[in-house]
């Protein structure tokens, strides 16, 4: 499929799906269930609003969602208390599949959601979105409800960064533009059409989620795109413009850590796909620098992109009676 052709046919605006009554009707006709997973770690400032908005608009008024779950990595603030107070199902990631040694990382929560949640579609929405709105969900599930051939829907935005003098109209996406899109352009040109490959908001069919591995760190979104692309091709993707996402801005140093994790995942995938041959064992230590009393110091971060296997390979998951797992 040509990039321009794909962009034209598989890129949506959330406004396309704003008729929620119609969307719910189509969902119900297909006997489909949809779960929302919000992975959290210390998100007490934003989680309450997310839960209230989604429950009110997308469970009570229009039953688009069948389940809203918060899966937490071990917050030390009131994230879980607040989420439960406003009616979300709350889980500690370490309590899900307790026989498997727990790992810390956002990808771990996303992976365990496949086991814990019941929906045929799982929508992942980050918890740090300040301008949350129902469109974040209906914009993503819309293409999946309307087009059976689409399996994975990714969000994209004009991403403003909040700053002290109001809202800047654009910016952000530094890792995408400096790292991901150049890498995709080099190795998988079609994937460069995914406008926001690192966005934390996406909706995916269970049959896909349960059959792909999950890096638990920074590389989870990148690996998803590579794995789904390899197995199902570009036609399985769609992307939806959700207009604006206001969130915390990250320091450049944090983006360095993110990039380091993503590159590990990317190189490992390239090697497995025999795109670049065997790569030597890579260091897992990122080195950054700071000046302390006029002296340069090295700051080392150990960043290991551990990976969970496809959920379908976990016996406890297969034992659960789920339609796709039975197939």
């Amino acid at each position, binding site marked *: 499929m040509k990039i321009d052709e794909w962009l034209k046919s598989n890129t949506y605006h959330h406004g396309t799906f704003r008729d929620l009554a119609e969307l719910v009707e189509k969902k119900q006709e297909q006997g489909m269930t949809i779960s929302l997973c919000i992975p959290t770690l210390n998100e*007490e400032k*934003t989680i309450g609003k997310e839960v*209230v908005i989604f429950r009110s608009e997308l469970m009570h008024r229009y039953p688009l969602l069948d389940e809203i779950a918060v899966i937490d990595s071990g917050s030390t603030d*009131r994230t879980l208390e607040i989420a439960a107070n406003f009616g979300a199902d709350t889980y500690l990631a370490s309590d899900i599949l307790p026989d498997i040694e727990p790992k810390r990382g956002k990808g771990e929560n996303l992976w365990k959601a496949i086991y814990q949640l019941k929906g045929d579609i799982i929508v992942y929405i980050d918890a740090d979105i300040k301008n949350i*709105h129902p469109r974040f969900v209906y914009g993503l599930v819309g293409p999946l409800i309307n087009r059976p051939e689409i399996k994975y829907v990714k969000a994209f935005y004009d991403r403003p960064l909040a700053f002290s003098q109001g*809202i800047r109209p654009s910016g952000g996406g530094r890792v995408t533009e400096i790292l991901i899109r150049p890498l995709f352009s080099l190795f998988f040109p079609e994937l460069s059409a995914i406008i926001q490959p690192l966005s934390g908001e996406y909706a995916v069919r269970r049959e896909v989620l349960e059959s792909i591995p999950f890096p638990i760190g920074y590389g989870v979104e990148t690996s998803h795109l590579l794995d789904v692309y390899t197995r199902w091709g570009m036609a399985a993707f769609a992307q939806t413009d959700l207009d604006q996402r206001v969130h915390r801005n990250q320091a450049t140093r944090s983006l360095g850590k993110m990039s380091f994790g993503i590159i590990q995942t990317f190189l490992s995938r390239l090697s497995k796909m025999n795109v670049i041959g065997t790569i030597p064992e890579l260091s897992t230590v990122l080195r950054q620098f700071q000046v302390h009393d006029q002296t340069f110091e090295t700051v080392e971060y150990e960043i290991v992109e551990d990976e969970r296997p496809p959920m379908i390979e976990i016996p406890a998951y297969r034992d659960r009676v789920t339609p796709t797992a039975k197939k």
Partner: protein
Amino acid sequence: MCHILIGMRMSFDAILEALPRYRERMAELSEIMLANLVMIAETPAPTFSEERRTGFVLERMNEYQLLNCSTDEVGNGLGILPGEVGDRNILLVAHMDTVFPDGMDHMVTIEPGYVSGLGIGDNSLGVAAVVTLPLILKDLGIKLDSNLIVMGTSRSLGRGNIEGIRFFLDNMEIPISAGVCVEGVKLGRLSYSSIGMVRGEIRCEVPEEYDWSRFGAGGAIVNMSEVINRIFEIPLSRRPRSTIVLNSVESGAGFNTIPTKGTVQFEARSESGPMVHQLAETIENIAAEVASHTGAEITMEVVAQREPGGVEFSHPLAVGARRVLTHLDIKPRIRPSTSELSAFIDKGIPAVTIGLSTGENLNEKGERIHIDPITTGLQQLLGLILAVDKGYCDEN
């Protein structure tokens, strides 16, 4: 879905007795109101620029299947819930505009017990309540006899001078039987009279050829201080009660710069119409006199005004409102208002203003409202609307 039908000839006592039965379901529905509250509050609506908030309000009204959902040339947003009989019209309003400009961060935070964000109490909560009420009525199976006109009003605050509601009442062709104005804060607030008010702005400008050796040299701030001192020397009568409030003073940019411009905003209030106009005239004279002494240019502009009036303490609407509040264990705090209520009073339409919840830091950063009282606030609104609907608040 709860279906509790109100009989057409239900007594006032029966209305009051029914309110507790609705509480549980209303508490559940308040989640929908909270969601509306967030979306309203996150849509900036500075006075004279309420279009986006009007758009959201109309979208909701359309979804709730109100009739005639529309805006007008001053930006009000309204819809009509038709009554079973339809021979009377109740106008339910909440002002949509806020004091906060577009560029500020309007994001809302919900935590257990409270919601915080710019304008959340003044008046996003009021707007959320009036917009959600038709849905609540439908869910509870309540059908009104009267038409309920639900309106988010524009251009209320400051220089807006309640232009939105005034425009509507000036141009509305159908008669309004009664008005209910809803403010987010504070639960227990009850206004059925308006106080006379003149809102003015004094501007001071020091000319470029100003003689810095003359009295008052030191720039605009010194001139403004003189004006302010003189304002506070104005004798204020106790009966009718009168007062002057300084609302804001602005001048100066920091060290190393002599301020050449400044403004003082004030409100003169009185129970007497002539008295409030006299106060305004006195302040204008002070401005002119100080200008003549100092050579600075000092002018006063009246930006808004209200005439005193309203219904009597014994008017059935006032009595009925107090009964509803008292029945719900809300202690009425009766005070005159300068809000939308004044426009109703000017037209001789009986009306009240009520509040829905408690809160802090209104019109400041850190503004927040408490969630728990909202259900009681909504019960109060429902009780009041039902009482008006059944004619228990009519004068005859």
